[in-house]
């Protein structure tokens, strides 16, 4: 089945230790997104790629970076995680407006 895959599902890191979350898709969609979702809140868009064009939300901290080496893969790099970065990180794709979400990666910062 075509889908959005996120690895790992759970990630534990230490305060200040860089971490990378990965997302892959078999839908061949040209747009990929990264969202941050904190407990009992709606997802918050961090950035998106339209093909190779990177679009950062104005309020996304510089601590968050992203890479999209090809259509299928997209990575979220958190350079120096703080306690406030503990959250669920959701990857999504779209081609015609409908977002298809992955299962998410739960990040814990110790």
């Amino acid at each position, binding site marked *: 089945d075509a889908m959005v895959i996120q690895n790992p599902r759970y990630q534990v890191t230490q305060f200040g230790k860089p971490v990378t979350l990965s997302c892959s898709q078999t839908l061949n969609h040209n747009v990929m997104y990264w969202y941050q979702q904190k407990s009992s809140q*709606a*997802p918050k*868009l961090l950035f998106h790629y339209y093909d190779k064009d990177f*679009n950062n939300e104005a309020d996304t901290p510089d601590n968050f970076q992203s890479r999209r080496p090809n259509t299928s893969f997209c990575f979220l790099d958190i350079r120096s995680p703080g306690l406030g970065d503990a959250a*669920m990180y*959701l990857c999504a794709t779209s081609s015609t407006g*409908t977002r298809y*979400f992955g299962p*998410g990666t739960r990040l814990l910062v110790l």
Partner: protein
Amino acid sequence: AQSVTQPDIHITVSEGASLELRCNYSYGATPYLFWYVQSPGQGLQLLLKYFSGDTLVQGIKGFEAEFKRSQSSFNLRKPSVHWSDAAEYFCAVAVMDSSYKLIFGSGTRLLVRP
């Protein structure tokens, strides 16, 4: 500015009872509307969407939603709730410009009584 309002933070219904979750939106053009469901610790699953055409939209898991332009609403309904429907439900509107934003409501948590 575009916005989505889900006025109910929590709703509790008995298993087998009918359900309606409310969603109101503010958007200048014809909206692209969605309902997503999220179980604890999981990603968002698309229940249904409205782009155009028939204003009553059928989705997965027995859900339906009705687009009412005059009321700026897109309420989600299910005639008979199952215990497995307990989850968080998000209504959203897509901004169809280069920003590719998806504006979410704050969500409604559904609890199902046995």
